[in-house]
Each structure stands twice: as C-alpha cells, then as structure tokens.
C-alpha cells in the first residue's frame, strides 16, 4: 500500500509542478538563509579566534581604564615598560604602544593609515616578521629618528609593486625613511586591515606626532614556560603600586591575555551570529507561512480531488497517507535544495569575506527538520479535514 501511495503522491506532485515549486520555494529560502548566516557567523568566529591565536598564546595586553569608558584615566608611560622589564623576570619582551592616525605621502600617492610608535620589541611581541629591510635599532629608538617600518597595504598604496626600503616618505609633517617592510598578516580580529600600518620608534611618535609622553597600551609577552597567570598577577601588583592605588581602590587598568581577548571578541561575533540566525529564523518562519498558505489554498482544489478519490474507493487513511507523503517529499526536497543552496552560497560568500567555510551539522539538521515539520503540519491538517468530509460533500466542493 505504501508503494502505491508513494506513486500517487509523486504523480500528484508532478501534475502540480508550479504549486509544488512554490511550496518548496519558501522552505528553500528559509533553510538557505538560516544555514548561510549561521555558517558565515561561525566562520567569522573561527577567524577571530584564529587571529588571536596567531598573536601568540603568551601575549598579555595591558590597557588603561576598566571596562569600556577609559576617558580621564591616566595612561602609561615609557617608564612603566622599563619597570616591567626590570622587575618581572618572566616578561620576555615589553612593548609600549602609542598610536595615531596620519596621512603618508610618497610622490603623488597618499594614504591615511595608523602610525604605531613602539620599540623593537613590538615586532616579536605582535608576531610580526619582516619581508625585507630591518627594524629600528636602539639608537634610533632613543634619539627618536624618523625611520619607519611599513605594512604591506601601505606599500601597495604608495609604492605599488616597488620595493619601498630606502625611500623617503612623508608621514603627517615628518620626513621619514622606510627601513623595513612587514610580511602581510591580513585582517585583524577587529575586522581592520593589520597590514595598513606604519611602525616608528615610540619617541618619534611621541615627540613629533602625538606631542605627549603617553603610552596607550602595553604588550607584554611571557617567556615560554612561565605561568601566564603569575605574570598577570605580578603585572597587576606592579602597576597598582606604580599608579599609587590604595588597597580599597579598583584597578584603573586591565590585564588581559590572548584567551581573554579571544573570548571577548568571539563572544561578540557569537552574539552577532545568533542575532543573524534569529533574523534568518524569521525568514524560515515566513517561508513556513508561505507553505501554509499554498497548502490551504490548494486544498480548495484538492477537496474535489479528495472527493473523487474517496468515491472511487480510496480509504480516508490512504488519502491522508498520500498527502502526508506529498508534504514530506516536498518539504524534504525543499530542505535538501535549501541545504545545497546554503552550502554553495556560504562557500562563495565565505571566500569573498575571507572567512573559513565552517560546516555546522547541527544547524543543517535543525533547519531541515523545522522546514519538514512546517510542510508536514500544514500539508497534513488541511488534507485531514478534507479527507474526513463525506465524499459527496467533498465532490460538491467548488
């Protein structure tokens, strides 16, 4: 009986191709939207955590202020970095960082970028490698020479394919020699281009660009084997002491390791993923309502069909089973097409957005089941109502 009913269901689908297509369409769009958005969200989360991992697992960031509002909080000084270096043995490198945005000019080309002032220790601490040239030496750091190491993006904007090492560029009003080129790193966890950067000695930036001796953050990398927690505790107490915080005062700075930064950032992208997923779930719901409408509308036509079937000897059960199979076949087909579409589109978009394609079995199964349930419920109940009519009433139905 099941095979015969399957045959009837497939014939019914075939002779109503347009209606079947419309029924499927809602499911396809809903399923594809949910899966695509969640897959891309997962990819973005993965990118963020990968990039933070690429910063090195032993990196500690110290930023002034607690929480998000950091205005009015005293910044760090170069001397803080020196103190950390001398007092905390487990700190391998300490890079004080001060950054400002400025326009760089070479011949006719100009580009606005971030100028980072730091010491030579910035490069190992930030996992930077040189593509060519050199980094600044201690004398250049101390005297505040106008030398700079530039990132790949800036090179392509100012120099095209040319080797920039040895050229003179102007950064804001500083004439500055390019002494090194950094290897490309790609997008940062914050979504910005990490290669869009100029690194100069801290003293140069402080004197000639920011005009203050403030340091906006400290990057500390721990020696391998040293306990990250211990280093963080030591950093905390040292900085509290240097900033004259009383016993009962809270820290006015934050010490975070890469895992914490990763958690904070991936937390954001996870929330975004959930938000996008929720929006997409609404579209799945709307798709479901579309199915419901088409099913309900088609029941008018199909009530007569049900009447005919009942009159020539179909059992109520067989008619229902046929409609159920139709609904299951259509919904599953819609779900599968939706999954295929989502896979293709998320692969393409992931490629464009430069995030990895992350297949998420759970969301695939979930949205498939949801759409199938939608199709089955809304296909089944109107049919059940019709199948329970007296055949004569169903036949008379116009």
């Amino acid at each position: 009986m099941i095979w015969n009913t399957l045959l009837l269901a497939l014939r019914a689908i075939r002779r109503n191709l347009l209606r079947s297509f419309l029924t499927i369409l809602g499911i396809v769009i809903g399923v594809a939207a949910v899966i695509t958005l969640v897959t891309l969200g997962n990819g973005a989360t993965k990118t963020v955590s990968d990039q933070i991992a690429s910063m090195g697992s032993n990196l500690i960031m110290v930023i002034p202020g607690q929480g998000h509002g950091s205005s009015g909080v005293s910044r760090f000084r170069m001397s803080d970095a020196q103190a950390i270096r001398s007092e905390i043995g487990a700190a391998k490198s300490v890079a004080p960082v001060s950054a400002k945005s400025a326009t760089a000019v070479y011949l006719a080309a100009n580009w606005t970028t971030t100028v980072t002032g730091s010491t030579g220790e910035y490069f190992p601490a930030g996992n930077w490698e040189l593509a060519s040239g050199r980094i600044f030496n201690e004398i250049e750091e101390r005297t505040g020479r106008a030398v700079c190491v530039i990132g790949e993006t800036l090179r392509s904007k100012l120099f095209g394919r040319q080797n920039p090492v040895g050229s003179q560029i102007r950064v804001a009003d500083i004439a500055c020699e390019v002494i090194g080129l950094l290897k490309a790193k790609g997008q940062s966890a914050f979504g910005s281009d990490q290669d869009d950067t100029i690194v100069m000695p801290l003293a140069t930036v402080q004197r000639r660009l920011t005009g203050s001796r403030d340091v906006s953050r400290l990057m500390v990398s721990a020696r391998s084997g040293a306990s990250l927690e211990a280093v963080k505790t030591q950093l905390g107490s040292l900085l509290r002491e240097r900033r004259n915080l009383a016993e009962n005062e809270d820290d006015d700075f934050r010490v975070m390791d890469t895992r914490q930064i990763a958690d904070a950032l991936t937390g954001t992208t996870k929330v975004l993923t959930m938000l996008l997923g929720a929006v997409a779930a609404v579209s799945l719901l709307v798709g479901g309502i579309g199915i419901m409408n088409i099913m309900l509308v088609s029941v008018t036509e199909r009530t007569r069909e049900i009447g005919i079937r009942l009159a020539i000897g179909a059992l109520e059960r067989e008619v229902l089973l046929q409609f159920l199979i139709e609904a299951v076949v259509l919904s599953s087909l819609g779900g599968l097409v939706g999954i295929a579409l989502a896979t293709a589109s998320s692969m393409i978009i992931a490629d464009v957005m430069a995030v990895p394609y992350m297949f998420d079995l759970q969301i695939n199964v979930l949205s498939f089941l949801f759409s199938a349930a939608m199709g089955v419920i809304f296909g089944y109940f109107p049919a059940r109502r019709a199948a329970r009519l007296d055949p004569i009433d169903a036949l008379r139905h116009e």
Partner: protein
Amino acid sequence: MTSAAAFIRLAGVTKAYGEGQAAFLALNGVDLSIAAGEFVAIMGPSGSGKSTVMNILGCLDTPTAGSYEFEGVHVEELTRKQRALLRRHYLGFVFQGFNLLARTTALENVELPLIYRGESASRRHANARSALAQVGLAGWESHTPGELSGGQQQRVAIARAIVTNPAVLLADEPTGNLDTATSREIMDLLTGLNRDRGITVLMVTHESEMAAYARRIVRFIDGRVASDGAGEHPQ
C-alpha cells in the same frame, strides 16, 4: 420487483437534511429493489430526491432511516471504511461533471482505482488500456482532460468506472454536460456495457430521451417513488 434474489434493496429509506422545524426530507420512505443486470433510469424534477437516492445507492451517503441491502449486506450498518471498500470493489461512478483529475493523462485517470486496489503496474497498464479501448479511446491514453472534448472526458470517466469490472455502474446525469449527439454515443456505450458485460447500470437523468435507453424507469416526486415501470414506453 420484490424478488428474494434482489441485488439491491432499499426499504423505507428516508434522508433528512437539517433538524427540527427546518428539517427537509429529501427522501421519504423509499422502497426500491433492483436485480442484477438491470438498466434503471431514475427520473424526476429537481429536488425530487433522485440524486440523493443515487448517492445512497452509491454508498457515498447514508440514509437517516430505513435499510439498504447490497447483496444481502446492510450498508447502513457498515463503517465508513467498509463502505469505501464496497465502492472500491463493486461500484463504478460516472458523474455529470466528469470529475477527472486535472492535468493527469487519461491512462493515469483510468489507472487510479486500480492503484487503490493494489494491482501491479503491468496489470494496471494493460487493464487501463483495454478499458480505454472499450470506450473507443485507444490512442488517447496520454491526453489530459484539458486536451479532450466533453464526450471524450466522459468516456475516460466511464473507462475509469469499468476498469475494475464493477457489479454496478452508477451514472449521475452522465449526459448533462453534453450535446445531443454526444449524449447518444454515451448512452449507446452504457447500453452496450449493460448488455454485453452484464453490468447493472443505475442512471439519474431528467431527459426523457436518455431515460428511454433504460429498460426500467423509476420516477421520483417529492422524495417518493411516483412510478416504476418498463422503459421505452414512458408514461
């Protein structure tokens, strides 16, 4: 016709629509016996109950009171499912509006009852083709109702009704939507099926000309049998 061998027997069949004051008796104590192999035309003006008695005879509807025996089985005591099985195995239907499945080929329409009977694909095709050939539609198997004339559609419907080799063919105004020439062809077809295959034919019609094809004419007025007699010489 009160022979004990009666094939179909209605006794005191009443069908009421509505309740209480507004109740309307579509059938009011109908007694009717039909023997196997008869060709009976049921006539009567609109509202006389002729379609209602047809639906009851076809097990599509149930009487409010009275009994309906089909080959000794009391149909009014059957469940919905048993009535469906009775329709499946013993009855064939032809309707005024053809009631074919739209966008479905003639062959698939005729196969439909066989699918519900669980016949194998090969037997289904063979039987459906032969039924279409019997109604003169050989070569039209792959046409959909939309591509067929009214007369051809009614022939497909007749093929669908006889493909299961039913004991009784119930035709409700089978020529109601057809022109006179086509109507005569359809009536010839029904007469032939009755004569050559011994199928009992019950037909509702309001056209005397069509009723004249029947060997027996039952007239209904106001839910009662008004007259019951031999055909060809209607009163």
